[in-house]
């Protein structure tokens, strides 16, 4: 990688030239909006991460400690709700997606720039309402199951409204991306010349547009239930609590693919660049993203196996669940085949991308245990599920996000980060992650239930291991962010194409000018011809 000694301010700061609050708050530049999303979502990642550290700290001892059981319930609800709704769902699509979709398809902005800005501010409004509910904090778990959520004195109604706004932002962003990808591609960029990140974002956006309204109406019904006393979800009034769960998971299952598909897209970009080989099975990876999105709509019932759902539905949903593994496995095999006989180098983006593949295999395969009706009855609501979920979301999505942040940091900021620090951070993050969450698989198999503030003393040893692991994980994240922030100010200037990538964003300057490209490029080939042409030598 380039070791540019020059750290002085460059003359042309590209899209970052303008300063001042208004230049950000009222911008219609997709890059600036993307940057605002990055700060917002990473901010909540830090807050919710601190909550997680507190929870782990409390679990060091089996008995009462630190805070009351009610506070524990509030904290894990906040941890889950913030991580899901304010961080993971928008983190890659709204933040990196906004910044890079127009750059990767070679156009000047998204199809509806004004709508894009509106989406951001509606997101902020939703956050404001959500944070306002801390006055009467939630203790329902992030799933808000009825009938408890319809009866608790916590501010469920206000929170529903806040999440409704956040969902609206998600829908409008997805809509914007779909139209952008359909109508704004650079001349010559047919569907099979699109970068795989674009395919992933397209599939993601379809899910956002079609599933988010269902959670929107679910929250409206929940609010109506509380305000007007309707009994849709209350068995005492003839309603059906499982209907709430059906609606909730009709959104919340597909939405895990909103979280994971963009990360898969990033991995598909990073792996060929650092293996210097054309991506293996381009079409298979592209179509598997659409297949995952579609099959994702068919399997929500596997969250309800022990809820009292009819056995017939349980068997059908369990059967369908296994089909998700097929396109997912296809992607993994294709990445591995891309690595085969490549000239692999291990820069930080690649390290995170490889961690994604490794950890997601574990997360995905343990998902099959949970998708199988009979095994699920045994491990349901144990720490096995917590481990599985964090292996897919933290080990999957967050690793993909970190890969993307490192990969695109030079392009977004015009600066290079310190690779040595980035590598040390990676060691801590990945080892800390495994030490934290792997013990939970064992704890779950041994029967330790999740969501309780206290646990039998026999589980303590592994809980101590997990808590200590969480400190290493946190230290790694702190180092990574410190490295980023320090480099923002005085990192060496980044060249236009530090990783020798072939996708379009590397053809413009770092950071890109406000109009992205001085001249819109014409595409004549797919973007993965690595190793097959005369490549510039490594600097």
């Amino acid at each position, binding site marked *: 990688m380039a070791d540019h000694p020059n750290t002085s301010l460059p003359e042309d700061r590209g899209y970052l030239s303008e300063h001042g609050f208004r230049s950000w708050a009222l911008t219609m530049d997709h890059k600036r909006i993307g940057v605002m999303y990055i700060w917002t979502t990473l901010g909540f990642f830090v807050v919710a991460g601190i909550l997680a550290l507190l929870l782990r700290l409390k679990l060091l001892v089996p008995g009462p400690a630190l805070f009351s059981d009610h506070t524990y319930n509030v904290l894990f609800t906040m941890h889950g709700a913030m991580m899901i709704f304010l961080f993971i769902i928008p983190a890659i699509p709204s933040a990196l997606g906004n910044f890079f979709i127009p750059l990767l398809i070679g156009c000047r902005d998204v*199809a*509806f720039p004004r709508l894009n800005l509106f989406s951001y501010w509606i997101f902020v409004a939703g956050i404001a309402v959500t944070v306002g509910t801390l006055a009467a904090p939630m203790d329902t778990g992030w799933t808000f199951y009825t009938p408890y959520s319809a009866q608790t004195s916590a501010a469920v109604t206000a929170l529903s409204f806040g999440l409704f706004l956040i969902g609206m932002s998600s*829908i409008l962003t997805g*809509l*914007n991306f*779909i*139209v952008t990808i*359909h*109508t*704004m*591609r650079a*001349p*010559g*960029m*047919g569907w099979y010349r699109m970068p795989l990140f674009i395919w992933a974002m397209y599939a993601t956006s379809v899910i956002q*547009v*079609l*599933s*988010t*309204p*269902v959670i*929107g*109406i*679910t929250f*409206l*019904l929940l609010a*109506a239930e509380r305000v*007007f*006393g*309707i*009994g*849709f979800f209350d068995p005492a*009034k*003839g*309603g*059906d609590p499982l*209907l709430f769960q*059906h*609606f909730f998971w*009709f959104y919340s299952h597909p939405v895990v693919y909103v979280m994971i598909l963009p990360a898969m897209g990033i991995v598909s970009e990073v792996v060929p660049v650092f293996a210097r080989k054309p991506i293996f099975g381009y079409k298979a990876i592209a179509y598997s993203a659409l297949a995952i999105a579609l099959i994702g709509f068919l399997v929500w019932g596997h969250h309800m196996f022990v809820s009292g759902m009819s056995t017939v539905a349980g068997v059908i949903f369990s059967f369908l669940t296994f089909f998700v593994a097929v396109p997912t496995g296809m992607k993994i095999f294709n990445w591995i085949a891309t690595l085969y006989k490549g000239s692999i180098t291990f820069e930080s983006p690649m390290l995170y991308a490889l961690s994604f593949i490794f950890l997601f295999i574990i997360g995905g395969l343990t998902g099959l245990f949970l998708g199988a009706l009979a095994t699920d009855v045994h491990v349901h609501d144990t720490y096995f599920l917590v481990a599985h979920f964090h292996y897919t979301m933290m080990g999957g999505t967050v690793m993909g996000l970190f890969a993307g942040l490192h990969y695109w940091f030079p392009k977004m900021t015009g600066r290079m980060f310190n690779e040595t620090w980035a590598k040390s951070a990676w060691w801590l993050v990945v080892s800390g992650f495994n030490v934290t969450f792997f013990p939970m698989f064992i704890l779950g198999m041994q029967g330790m239930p999740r969501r309780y503030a206290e646990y039998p003393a026999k589980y303590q040893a592994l809980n101590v291991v997990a808590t200590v692991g969480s400190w290493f994980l946190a230290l790694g994240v702190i180092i990574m962010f410190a490295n980023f922030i320090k480099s923002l100010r005085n990192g060496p200037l980044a060249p236009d194409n530090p990783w020798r990538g072939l996708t379009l964003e590397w053809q413009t300057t770092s950071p890109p000018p406000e109009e992205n490209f001085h001249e819109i490029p014409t*595409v004549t080939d797919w973007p993965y011809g690595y190793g097959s042409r005369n490549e510039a030598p490594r600097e």
Partner: protein
Amino acid sequence: MSDNHEAPNGAPVSARLGIWAFLATELLLFGALFTAYAQFRITHAELFHQEHLKLNRVLGALNTLVLLTSSLTIAIGIAAIRRGLQKLLKVCLSLTLALACGFLFIKYLEWSHDFHMGWFPRTNLFFGLYFMMTGLHGLHVLAGMGVMIWLLYKAQRGSFSAEYNTPVEITGLYWHFVDLVWIYLFPLLYLIG
């Protein structure tokens, strides 16, 4: 190599794709309510049958006519502005607005009668659904009226022409969708409950 084929309609492809994607969202928003309706109608068939007889079929049918007619007027408005007939557009928008007001007025009569009779959302599942579905639909009518007032204001200033009429066209599509929802709500709630 975009999908920007020659548009048979006035609005550019991106605007049409955008509004149809938005309508897809709306469809799923109402779709969940229709799902709830379907489930409760199966599990509480007797209740639904008895309660739906309480609704005023004539007023419901009248409202259907009002809304269908408002769809006609806005469709004509779009055809008019495509020919550059600004005045006809303004007439059509005003008529559509008036019909929308009429729709809401009739709805108001129905609801106040319901409340007078002591039928509230909490009364039972049928009325819960009835108020939620017609209420959400009514909110959509209100939103559409808001947009049309804005369109009328723009039309007054001569913003629309044969060349540029995208906002009118996509508002029209939204309005027809609101009509479509009512086309299903009417029989489901008033006729076969």
